[in-house]
């Protein structure tokens, strides 16, 4: 009876509580280490992509030449994927392009949108980015 203090119900419950606290703190600590930086970088890269494409006239070129964006795709980080969709003023998809070897979509994404004028019409370019 005197030995029971080691394996008493109180002690067993305490061990479970302590283990629970350790596991919970470990779980939340791991979650806190996950950051949104990947998403922020993709967002910045998507914005850079559209800004540079517009300033270099590549968005207008893309409307007549589907390969016009290839030089820009090559500038992206190796593990970054991008898909560019161009919509007309009615919201109908007019053109689309995806970086090669990027068929599979991943959950961490960044996106950017920009309007531009081509043949006196307004178009909306939208680029969505993710990591391979």
């Amino acid at each position, binding site marked *: 009876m*005197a*030995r029971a*203090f*080691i394996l008493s119900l109180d002690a067993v419950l305490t061990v479970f509580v302590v283990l629970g606290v*350790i596991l919970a*703190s*470990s779980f939340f*600590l791991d979650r806190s*280490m996950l*950051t949104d*930086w990947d998403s*922020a*970088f993709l967002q*910045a*890269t998507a914005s*850079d*992509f559209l*800004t*540079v494409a517009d*300033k*270099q006239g590549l968005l207008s070129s893309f409307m007549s030449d589907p390969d016009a964006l290839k*030089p*820009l795709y*090559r*500038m*992206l*980080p190796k593990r970054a994927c991008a898909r560019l969709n161009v919509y007309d003023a009615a919201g109908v998809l007019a053109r689309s392009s995806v970086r090669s070897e990027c068929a599979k979509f991943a959950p961490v994404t960044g996106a950017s949108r920009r309007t531009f004028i081509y043949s006196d019409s307004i178009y909306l370019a939208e680029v969505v980015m993710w990591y391979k």
Partner: protein
Amino acid sequence: MSTGLLCLKASDTRGQIFSIDLIGAVGLFIFILLAAYWFESSTLSRIDSTVSVQRMTTMAFVASNALVLPGGGPSLASSPNVLSLARVSSFFSSNYSLAKDSLAIRSPYELKVSLLDPDKRPLSVFGLEPSDAVNSFTIDRIVVYNSSLSVLRVEVWYG
């Protein structure tokens, strides 16, 4: 006779202190203490490492924004993502410590900025080479430089 009885009594009472229960309890206590210490140490180490990487990441991101977006200070851009030849030339020949301060990169972190051509070969390099870096973080920003596509690579590291 009386001394012998005292010795006998003393040896009887020793069993109450050095019982199996007590030794087991002390052993368990020490085990839990060591386990808690190990857990705390490893957790603190992970937090330190994460904070350091977060700080490096933030500095690289902020520095790259400061360089590619127009504005005062160390900006290289005449308009968003379009680099000015004069500003690039001035920055790449500037004093390293001053440039680092203006980009809010604090010790022990160091900085390397590279301007790359479309094939990602360096056109200009500024800063310290992270040859013996323990940790480094690199961010590439697409820019227009001298009317052609380029990449501005910002690398923050510490050794």
